[in-house]
């Protein structure tokens, strides 16, 4: 379910900076409720998938979930107990850069109480501080 690129132009990416507010992806476009990042950071495919599962598991048969992040950046890591040097580490996972204000998930077709409870569980799976938001 979680999306990631099937082919990449380069094997390793530079990390870049995550300063400032998100310019795009900060308004609710699909559902009535959303989970918004209050701080910047990176989300790996595992974290996104884990949070998405928590949402759908809680909602059972109701509601519809939209994932608004795409993990398209390669995370590299050095093997354990190795010394520095020898070049950049090996690719380990795909991750999504998330800026402050970016909406990670959207939810529709459910009540506000259910949405709040589902997003609360999903937020435990994410490494960022998030907030619940409702369409104005």
């Amino acid at each position, binding site marked *: 379910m979680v999306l990631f690129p099937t082919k990449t132009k380069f094997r390793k990416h530079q990390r870049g900076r995550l300063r400032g507010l998100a310019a795009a992806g*900060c308004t609710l476009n*699909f559902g009535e409720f959303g989970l918004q990042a209050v701080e910047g950071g990176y989300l790996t495919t595992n974290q996104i998938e884990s949070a998405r599962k928590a949402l*759908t598991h809680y909602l*059972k048969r109701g509601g519809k979930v939209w994932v608004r992040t795409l993990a398209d950046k390669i995370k*590299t890591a050095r*093997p354990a107990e190795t010394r520095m040097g*020898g070049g950049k580490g*090996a690719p380990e996972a795909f991750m999504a850069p998330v800026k402050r204000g970016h909406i990670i998930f959207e939810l*529709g077709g459910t009540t506000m109480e259910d949405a709040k409870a589902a997003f609360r569980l999903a937020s435990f799976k994410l490494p960022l501080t998030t907030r619940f938001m409702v369409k104005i």
Partner: protein
Amino acid sequence: MTKEQVEIKAAERQALGKKAKKLKASGQIPAVVYGRKFPATAIAIDLKEFTKKVLQSDAGHNLIFNLNVAAGEKSKNVPVITQQVQRNPLNGEIIHLDLRHIVMDEAIKTSVPVELIGTPIGVKDSGGVLVHGLREIEIKCLPGNIPDKFEIDVAQLAINTSLHVSDLKAAQEIEVLSDPAEMIANVSPPTKEEEAAAQPTFAAEGAPAEGTAAEAAASAAAGKPGEKAAPATAGKPAAETKSAAAGATAGKASEPKKK
């Protein structure tokens, strides 16, 4: 069209650019009013008054109201409509307003919210989820003819059926500008819990399966868990191949190097 005559007081402001942020302390927000027959003027508006009288009205941002702009000792009344509301994405606070001067006999473009009425059959009987697609429809008409909202009855929608802009019955004097093929409402099957989803797999030396993560995932699923994916170096430039080999060496040397 709303019949209420709302009047809001505003004052021309000298604090431009970043200095405009200081207005917030006095409960005001920076705004600009402009139009084809009105020069762009920077103003300051009381936030509470604007929110209560305009945004919380039935017509919402489509309310036409009189703006009383005070410039020194003079003041003038201008009929305006809210063109844009800028909000802070983190807390939803209004940070700036664009107000547009209108001429009542000139057609304007604006967007009108859509309200869905009723519970679809697909939701009641089949447990589907009502998905609200387009929430605002762009129209062109005279300022006096702008409707507060479009009410659309969705009670007859079954599962996997949709309502589009083309199904909308707007009054004759209103020209609908949104794409007729755009979806307004749809009843879709509920989200199901899925089985283990594909995870990105990287080749042994660390390349994202040298091109296709999906292929590597497929080979892993074929029952070769212990087998390391061979680095697919064919057709790669020499420099790339060299770096892949270096990566393989780095990956293998898990014990500390001897000096």
